[in-house]
């Protein structure tokens, strides 16, 4: 589902497995609880270990983007999968948040 790590005003959410309408609310709750506790300036949503995603994943990203924007925070997406990138582009998410193919080291550390 999701594992969140917080450090230096950055919360990274490592999503895994399948993201659909059934599982999305549980992931959302987890990430939102972390945003609430750590009040990060940057939220990174890492889809590297996601094996399946439908448009429920888009709602998940948009919702978190809105939440972060309220506190002037940034959101970034890491997504190596071309199919999921296509769905994200369909929603115009690439115009709102940076979509990277892989984690960069300085963010990772």
């Amino acid at each position, binding site marked *: 589902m999701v594992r969140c790590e917080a450090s230096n005003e950055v919360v990274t959410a490592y999503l895994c497995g399948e993201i*659909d309408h*059934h599982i999305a609310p549980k992931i959302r709750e987890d990430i939102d609880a972390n945003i609430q506790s750590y009040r990060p300036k940057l939220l990174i949503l890492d889809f590297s270990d996601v094996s399946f995603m439908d448009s*429920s994943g888009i*709602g998940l990203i948009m919702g978190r983007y809105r939440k972060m924007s309220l506190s002037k925070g940034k959101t970034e997406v890491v997504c190596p999968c071309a199919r999921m990138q296509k769905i994200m582009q*369909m*929603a115009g998410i690439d115009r709102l948040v940076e979509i990277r193919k892989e984690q960069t080291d300085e963010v990772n550390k």
Partner: protein
Amino acid sequence: MKSTNEIKLTIPSKSSNEGYARVAVSAFIAQLDPTVEELQDIKTAVSEAVTNCIVHAYPDVIGKIYIMVQLLDKNTVRIKIRDTGRGIEDVQKAMEPLFTTGSEERSGLGFSVMESFMDKVTVTSKKGKGTSVTLTKRLSQRVKNA
């Protein structure tokens, strides 16, 4: 086109069945030897259609979702996903990208995703009677000795 093989599934509109529905459909289609990409396309489209039934057709009740998968000539797959729920007032509008009557966390992209991953998407609906979505896709590979 003639159907060479088909299955019918009826599932309750519980969100926990979304995963089962897309896996069951893709498992049946596997006999046509699709590519991994094609299977993922179909799984994604089925997931969207089934989610629509759960979220929109039966918002307050658990209803039945009828799924039929037909393997047709020329390596073509036809998937029909039907409900007897609320129905859609304006199908054309419902199919517009980003249009949704759902919550803030719904993207309004369900039909766009279906259209982009399948060759053809046909929707018929009657208010108060239900909705039927037919997804068609021709697979690239030929069946070996089917």
